[in-house]
């Protein structure tokens, strides 16, 4: 058993990075992920890691340096938030298209405007189609565990894709919770030695990376990326099984909470799931059959498995901490797609909550469950998509 300490989410991530000891880390500080790099930079300065820390002039450069270092053959990590991720945009696609297994922590924060530094998922959801594997974390412990597992997932021979680990800005990144760290040697053994594929520094075997590919071959390379994503689910489960052996903590593609016999269900990511679980317990005590599904792997999305887990549910409330203006929230779209794979047709409503760090309180979860209950009784939906916790 490892050490149990009270730390912030950012500290947990920095500690995981110290234990992973990447070859190169290129980053530019941005709230709320700044503390990750601040603490990691101290590890570098104190000689606790062997990492080459590249202090760059922007996040675009940070991701560019990460790609270069990964192409050279290094194990590479970084961290960012919000506008930082937005500035990395074109490089995110290049990292995945070039199949660089870079691992990044994304401390979720709202995108401007208006400028706001607090937690919501508009950054991560915006990066949905960048070809990165996405893991989401309810708390510091999950973020720490996910980051260590992400190294194995990204670098797996059948995957070779970059991965980002999401956790809520401030709510998790700056809150102190007690959590358990694995011993250094356990992490070292778990992640193993990185074996780069065709590294540029192998001068005996020179290669060209990132060439121009015209219509005659472009689609073949995109099809390869799709194939790699198809392998991710199995790899995530295999890595989780091994992780459970060393940590005692079990992970799946998602967490199903009191869902087996549920007639009503909430689907929600990250920290708000904890609040919902407490409220679900209260409703369960009153005999109301409500459960929760908290996705962990968002890209690739495990459609069939999620559909199976939700197949007995009559009414689903999908909570999105990100907007797709003019459309349903991104999680709602995934759940709606998932339910198409097995033919069960629950009634589904979408609630946009918590934007820009707006508190998600137990009464909000209760409001959703009450509405789900009413829909189940009447069969009537007032609004399929609505805001939760907003002033008129």
């Amino acid at each position, binding site marked *: 058993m490892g050490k149990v300490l009270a730390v912030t989410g950012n500290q947990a991530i920095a500690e995981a990075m110290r234990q992973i000891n990447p070859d190169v880390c290129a980053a530019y500080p941005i709230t709320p992920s700044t503390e990750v790099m601040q603490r990691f930079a101290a590890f570098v300065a104190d000689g606790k890691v062997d990492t080459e820390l590249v202090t760059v002039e922007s996040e675009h450069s940070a991701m560019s340096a990460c790609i270069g270092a990964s192409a050279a053959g290094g194990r590479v990590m970084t961290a960012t938030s919000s506008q930082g991720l937005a500035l990395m945009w074109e490089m995110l696609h290049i990292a995945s298209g070039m199949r660089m297994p870079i691992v990044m922590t994304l401390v979720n924060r709202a995108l401007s405007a208006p400028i706001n530094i607090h937690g919501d998922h508009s950054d991560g959801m915006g990066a949905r189609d960048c070809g990165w594997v996405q893991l989401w974390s309810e708390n510091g412990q999950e973020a720490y565990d996910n980051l260590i597992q992400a190294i194995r997932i990204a670098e797996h021979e059948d995957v070779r894709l970059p991965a980002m680990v999401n956790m809520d800005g401030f709510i998790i990144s700056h809150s102190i919770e007690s959590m358990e760290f694995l011993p250094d040697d356990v992490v070292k053994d778990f992640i193993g030695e990185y074996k780069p*594929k065709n590294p540029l520094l192998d001068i005996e075997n020179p290669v060209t990376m990132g060439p121009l590919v015209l219509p005659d071959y472009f689609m073949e390379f995109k099809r390869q990326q799709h194939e*790699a994503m198809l392998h991710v689910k199995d790899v995530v489960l295999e890595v989780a099984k091994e992780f459970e052996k060393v940590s005692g903590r079990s992970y799946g593609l998602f967490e199903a909470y009191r869902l087996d016999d549920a007639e009503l269900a909430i689907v929600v990511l990250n920290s708000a799931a904890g609040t919902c679980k407490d409220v679900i317990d209260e409703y369960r005590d009153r005999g109301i059959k409500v459960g929760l599904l908290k996705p962990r792997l968002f890209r690739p999305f495990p459609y069939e498995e999620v559909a199976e887990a939700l197949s007995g549910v009559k009414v689903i409330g999908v909570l999105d901490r990100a907007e797709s203006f003019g459309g349903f929230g991104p999680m709602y779209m995934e759940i709606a797609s998932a339910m198409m794979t097995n033919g069960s047709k629950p009634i589904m409503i979408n609630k946009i909550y918590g934007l820009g760090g707006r508190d998600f309180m137990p009464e909000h979860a209760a409001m959703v469950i009450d509405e789900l209950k009413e829909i189940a009784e009447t069969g009537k939906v007032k609004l399929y998509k609505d805001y939760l916790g907003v002033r008129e």
Partner: protein
Amino acid sequence: MKGWKELEIGALTKAGSADEYNTGSWRAFRPVWIEENCIQCLFCWIYCPDSAITVKDGKRGEFDYMHCKGCGICAMECPGKKGKKAIVMEEEGK
């Protein structure tokens, strides 16, 4: 042509493959080297953006027409000898 299963992931190709790719066909004007006017200053070699001036033993030789795109920079920079250019541009196909 190869299918996606046969290709190296991430569009990895062998090093220096551009050397085998004929980009000289893009040219509208071709530079012509007039050796008698050449003082071997190698300005053309320095300024050429596409390494299309071949140099051997410190002296320039013929153009690499497989990669020269006919930008004309070499002709412009060429100081020539006694007012006569050692590189002139001629329209392709003439």
